[in-house]
């Protein structure tokens, strides 16, 4: 397990940051070469990165969509005079119209209002869960990669065990036993089980960086481990960590929506997954109320899709080889 650095072709191979297991994006990041991109970055100025990022159409499009949805989640509820579960807000099961932009549900709830509140809740859970996963995964990866030895063996053993476990099934079971009462708990459960590929990828990055001269220099001059990680390694991996977070975010959105869809999410409230659950449960397909299930699903797809797109765009920015393609 410690032989990652000897991958002869210098290509990511199995050590590539595995796509987030819940995000259904295999191979997405396979081109992110942890061994190639980072050193390139080390020598380049940050502003240059930003310059390329802001000129990459994928990054621009992806980020715009995400930010648009974020704004919609933050501000949308303010533009609605209804509650997300308020019945009889409009006529029952009305198609989209100028009064009710996205139509109403079978009980006359306003789909626009639900979508706004749902987007907000979805962002909340996904950001929290991604932060938790990122924290755990990065800590494990940094420590394992930097300290090496027995600790590395143990941490990677734990990581590999969790990696092989079918995470979603485990989360379903845990959720079923504990019962999830609020978004924070849901985020915690998702975060706790969704960090493994981050740990492995970050470890690989750290390993390669650790072997480099500037880190050796720092170590020789007696700088403490934590400081080295903080000052020398982490900044050099910053680009990589940003991309990791974006993927975690996308994964958590799908993860949370799936839990909500199975009615294993927080009770009460409104989320995109819950909208799909309610549409499905109240037979919106048979009743022909397509606007009820098309919009929330499209929102999830748009947000996660944009996250992937942003990720690929950033990959091109940080890894100039890809830029020309």
């Amino acid at each position, binding site marked *: 397990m410690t032989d990652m650095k000897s991958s002869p072709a210098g290509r990511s191979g199995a050590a590539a940051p595995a796509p987030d297991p819940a995000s259904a994006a295999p191979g997405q990041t396979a081109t992110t070469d942890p061994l190639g991109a980072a050193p390139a970055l080390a020598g380049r100025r940050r502003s240059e990165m930003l310059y390329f990022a802001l000129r990459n159409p994928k990054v621009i499009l992806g980020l715009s969509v995400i930010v648009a949805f974020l704004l919609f989640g933050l501000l949308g509820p303010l533009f609605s005079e209804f509650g997300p579960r308020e019945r009889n807000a409009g006529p029952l099961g009305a198609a989209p119209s100028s009064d009710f932009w996205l139509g109403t549900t079978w009980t006359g709830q306003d789909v626009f209002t639900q979508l706004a509140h749902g987007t907000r809740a979805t962002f909340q859970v996904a950001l929290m869960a991604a932060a938790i996963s990122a924290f755990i995964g990065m800590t494990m990866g940094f420590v394992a990669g930097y300290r090496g030895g027995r600790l590395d063996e143990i941490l990677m053993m734990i990581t590999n065990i969790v990696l092989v476990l079918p995470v979603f099934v485990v989360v379903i079971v845990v959720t079923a036993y504990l019962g999830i009462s609020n978004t924070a708990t849901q985020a915690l459960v998702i975060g706790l089980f969704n960090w493994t590929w981050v740990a492995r990828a970050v470890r690989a990055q750290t390993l390669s960086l650790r072997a480099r001269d500037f880190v050796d220099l720092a170590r020789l001059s007696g700088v403490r481990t934590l400081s080295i990680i903080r000052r020398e390694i982490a900044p050099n991996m910053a680009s990589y960590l940003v991309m990791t977070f974006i993927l975690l975010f996308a994964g958590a959105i799908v993860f949370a929506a799936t839990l909500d869809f199975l009615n294993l999410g927080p*009770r009460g409230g409104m989320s995109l997954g819950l909208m799909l659950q309610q549409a499905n449960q109240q037979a919106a397909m048979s009743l022909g109320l397509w606007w009820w299930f098309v919009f929330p699903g499209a929102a999830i797809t748009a947000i996660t899709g944009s996250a992937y797109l942003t990720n690929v765009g950033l990959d091109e920015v940080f890894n100039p080889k890809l830029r020309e393609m």
Partner: protein
Amino acid sequence: MRQWRRFLVPLAGAGLVLAACTEDVTDDVADGENVDEAEDTDDADSANAGEFPRNETVYTGGAEWGTYEDWNPNTDGEATFVRGFLYETLFWFDPWEAELKPWLAESGEWIEEDVYEVALRDGITWHDGEQLTADDVKFTFDLRDVPGVEFPELDEWLDEVEVVDDLTVRFHFSDPRAGQWDNVLYDREIVPEHTWGEMDREEIPEASGEDITIGSGAYEYHSHDENRARYERYDDWWATEHLGLEMAARYVVDFRNESNEVAMSQILQNELDLSNFFLPGINQVPEFGESVHTFYSEEPYMLSANTASLIPNHDRSPTDDADLRRALAFSIDVDDIVDTGYQGIVEKADPTGMLPLWLDQGFRDDEVVEEHGFSYDPEEAERILDEAGYVDEDGDGWRETPDGEDMELDFIVPSGWTDWELAAEVIEENLHDVGVNVVLDFVDPGQELDPRRDSGDYDLVFDNQMLLQNHLFAQYFYLYELPVLDEQANRDNPHRVENEHAWELTQELARLGTPPTDDPDDDERFMEIVSELQEITLEDMVIIPLWYNGLWSQVNDSTWTNWPSDDPDTPNYYPTTWANEFMLGGLMTFTEIEPAG
């Protein structure tokens, strides 16, 4: 890559074949004898054993809550159609006329104050060819003292079962509860002594498997898995000769669905003929009125099956206060629940909680209801609250109890039951409007709701166990049964009221038949008791009846027609497959249907 392609394409199909093979082994187990017979006939007409012609098969669904594993007619919770198709009862109950109709029995009557005599029909055979006799009836009822068998309390008032001759049985009672006895007569399946008698008595409640399905009914067990049970017509059914009844469908397949909404697409796609799932919105699909029908073609679309009520906990403050309960009753806008939650497929309940059947029989005391009844009137609710001392002293917007304590009602709601969730939200709004703080507590139905309701750990909860039964005693048993135990699991009186007088009256009511009987004095007493019970119930506002849950029923008439409806040209039986209601007309429904086209 080329070698990949070679094994990949067959693999796609291999999975399916795998499913076919494995299923073949695990599913197709039936009791030996029946299968042999079935195969013999199939070989004769060279039909495919695994395929039922669609036009000879009825698809049903909506009754099975567990899985099709309990084939034991002696315990509760048996698989759909065990009662009715496989095993039969002595009588069935016709809710339209509110009277018992003879079934296995030819007749039955009280020949003495405490002796009831049943005359069986001659020539009824079990599926294995043995005669059904008085001994089987005695055997069945003598199981009443075995723990776990249905009707355990029967032992307290049924003294002895006497076989007079092959076709005559007499029941000697220590306490002749005529009304309650009628309930047993259409509910208890008669089982054959020659199979069940070989078992150890104590083990009878635990008997399982398909080899206990030899009954007397119109259908025999064919096969089952977790999601469906199949039945095949028994061609020597007694009722063909005795009553001229015939089952047009040679096969019946009953389906279990993971959730209701799946049934919606199934009934629209003609993959269900009779659906007893709760399908809100069925009256709004384009197919409604074309191929898809309900009993009534307009509101309320469904017959009523039980009364859904708001249950206040009488064992906890402040819901132990009748004034508060009364105020709650006045503050709830049931029409809102009926119109938006159900969109007209249920009816608002009468304040007495009596099902339409009893209202039609004239048992409602209009004067009592006039004086003590309630309707949606928030102002009246506020007046009652003010008067009883529930006022908002500290100005936080919520009323406190008369003692000045903060009041927060804990209303437990089964999460995922959308209609009840919605109704609870309406009630939450209504109560907030009159300044009563209620908190909805959405909990897992099986894991949390049932235990909390049974142990009295709630302030408010919905309940709909006031069922359609043969006699009004059942309703008042539900309301007043004593004693109240720590755990009221599967018992009446979940609201934990303790009213000795009402319980006495209820027990007396159970001893009287539903009027008109042969005894005018009894009938008069019946009316007196019913009036007094209505008065006590409304005055004390024991529970708050809200709406009648429907006898959910939707049919698709593409394959089978002549389903019951309010059209005078069709039968009017209660079209249901639910086990508890099947002997209220569900079985008769199947005798009437005809192949389409």
